[in-house]
């Protein structure tokens, strides 16, 4: 739908301005990448890539840094929060698209999306003052009593329940990403052609069967995209975790131990860093985070676009 009009000089100027504005996004991404590489170069040079991501040594006194503990914390909190959030989010999406009476669909959907609007620092504070004590006094001891004695999984629930740990951080993250996952799943569900659903109902299928055999097969790639997008969000979340994770550079077996994620380490130690190699290593962490989340978000976008295209065709 390209338009070739008589070129007016003002038009040329205006179009160039808009072009520059839109290319700014591209330039920003490249700029961020360039600056992060530049700033982390001393650390890259000193520790290399493989050694940096595999070393658990985070030792400011000796000036020796490795990202493994941070990557561990980031991976555990992200994966755990996805495990908690996805079933709930898909349940919500099914409820809002298929089950709720029409007059409730809008309000409930909107209310759950409002969860996404609450700033992460509020989640963090709420987590510290309200959720952490609940976790420490009720939920974690209960978990310890019930599944803590089982072989294999028992080791995940060892130690003293403090409330400031991997599990609490993951629960908060999961609450934060539920709205994203639910919203995208709902959009994917809504793309299912109504005709097919209606013919299934006409054949006497129950709602469960329609969802299981028609809606989900139609939208699974989109839902998967939503899950990956939430993964990307959880990966980069800072404030909600900073309050309740404890910032401890260690790889632990138990979910009741404090840990550190890349984001929490940045928030806690960035202004504190006294040596150049320390600061540079923090930039290196930021670079890793940027690249990881970029790849994951790009994947998510790919899956979401694929569903939309697939349905259109």
């Amino acid at each position, binding site marked *: 739908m390209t338009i070739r009009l008589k070129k007016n000089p003002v038009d040329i100027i205006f179009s160039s301005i808009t072009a520059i504005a839109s290319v700014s996004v591209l330039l920003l991404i490249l700029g961020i990448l360039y600056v992060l590489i530049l700033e982390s170069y001393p650390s890259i040079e000193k520790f290399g890539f493989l050694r940096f991501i595999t070393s658990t*040594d*985070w*030792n*400011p*006194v*000796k000036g020796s840094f490795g990202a493994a503990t941070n990557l561990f914390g980031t991976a555990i909190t992200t994966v755990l929060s996805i495990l908690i959030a996805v079933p709930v989010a898909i349940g919500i999406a099914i409820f809002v698209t298929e089950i709720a009476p029409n007059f409730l669909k809008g309000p409930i959907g909107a209310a759950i999306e409002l969860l996404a609007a609450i700033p992460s620092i509020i989640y963090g504070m709420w987590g510290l003052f309200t959720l952490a004590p609940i976790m*420490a006094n009720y939920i974690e001891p209960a978990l310890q009593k019930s599944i803590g004695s089982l072989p294999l999984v028992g080791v995940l629930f060892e130690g*003293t329940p*403090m409330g*400031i740990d991997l599990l609490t951080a993951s629960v908060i993250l999961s609450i934060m990403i539920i709205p994203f996952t639910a919203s995208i799943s709902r959009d994917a569900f809504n793309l299912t052609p109504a005709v097919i659903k209606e013919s299934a109902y006409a054949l006497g299928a129950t709602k469960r069967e329609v969802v299981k055999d028609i809606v989900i097969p139609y939208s699974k790639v989109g839902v998967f995209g939503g899950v990956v997008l939430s993964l990307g969000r959880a990966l980069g979340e800072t404030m909600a975790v900073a309050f309740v994770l*404890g*910032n*401890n*550079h*260690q790889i632990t077996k138990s979910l009741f*131990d*404090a840990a*550190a994620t890349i984001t929490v380490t940045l928030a*806690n*130690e960035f*202004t*504190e*860093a*006294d*040596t150049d190699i*320390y600061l540079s290593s923090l930039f290196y962490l930021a670079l890793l985070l940027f690249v990881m989340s970029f790849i994951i978000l790009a994947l998510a976008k790919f899956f979401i676009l694929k569903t939309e295209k697939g349905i259109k065709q």
Partner: protein
Amino acid sequence: MFKPKFLCILTGLAISLLSFGSSFAADTKLNGAGASFPYPVYSAWAYDYNKVSGAQLNYQSIGSGGGIRQIVNRTVDFGASDAPLKPEELEKDSLLQFPAVIGGVVLVVNIPGIKAGELKLDSNVLCNIYLGEINYWDDEKIKRLNPGKALPHKEITVVHRSDGSGTTAIFTDYLSAVSSDWKEKVGAGTSVKWPAGIGGKGNEGVANYVKRVGYSIGYVEFAYAKENNLSHTLLKNSAGNFIKPSFESFKEAAGSADFDPKKGFYLWLNNAPGKKAWPIAGATFILLAKEKKESNINVVKFYDWAFKKGDETAERLIYVPLPVSLKNKIRAYWKSHNIY
């Protein structure tokens, strides 16, 4: 054409806001940044000082490391650090340094049946506990210090800070000073690689852990031990006496220590020689850029005022003010650099 008009209004608003902002800049404004430990007392002083003088002293706690970095880069009027810079470092970056207030690090334990001030420790035992070499409360070495006390056969949970902090710097400097083993294996700094234990965020985190984890030991700023009603231990000082942490024993540590103005007061208060001196303490320091005469005079004015009028505020917030003799030494130091 709603947009350009809209933009014009916005820009106009912006410009008027900016001029509104700059009209506030008439009074003296000082920016400082650094150690988080003295943040409450500096901000309390700054608040009172603002009322009497109109000067605004904005102090932000970004950590000691950050404070040093900012003053070295000359981006603030003064830096603050819990760890003093060595004379040659001061020379290199052309800085002045003086202490402002004293902090003490105390040990707190949670052993059912043991009350505050009942457990006696010495530097050797403490070091071995933090190295993870003494694992049980009824270890022979602890028993020897506490004859006749029923100590349980329970595993010790060591609690330390998980974030960088001046408290850790003071504590690890003490351990390094008393044990070559510690110095070699761990060293001293605002954050170190701990050989044992669990980490709590901030003094609060450590206090919280010690409160809730049975048979644990942790180190916190004196103020937190007091506010949280934790059981402190007695600790043997360099004179061989078991000392209770208190305002008096901190003051004695500060008073008996020999701060040398020529070295920019470079000194750790650990193992101060006083008979009743608490062994783990440190002054927190102010750093000034030598060539910034004008702002230095204003910063010094503030601290001179704080030394005169701020003791009460400091003690209310459970900080230990400097002894008078040291204050006079600092004033002489200022004079010798023509900023007082």
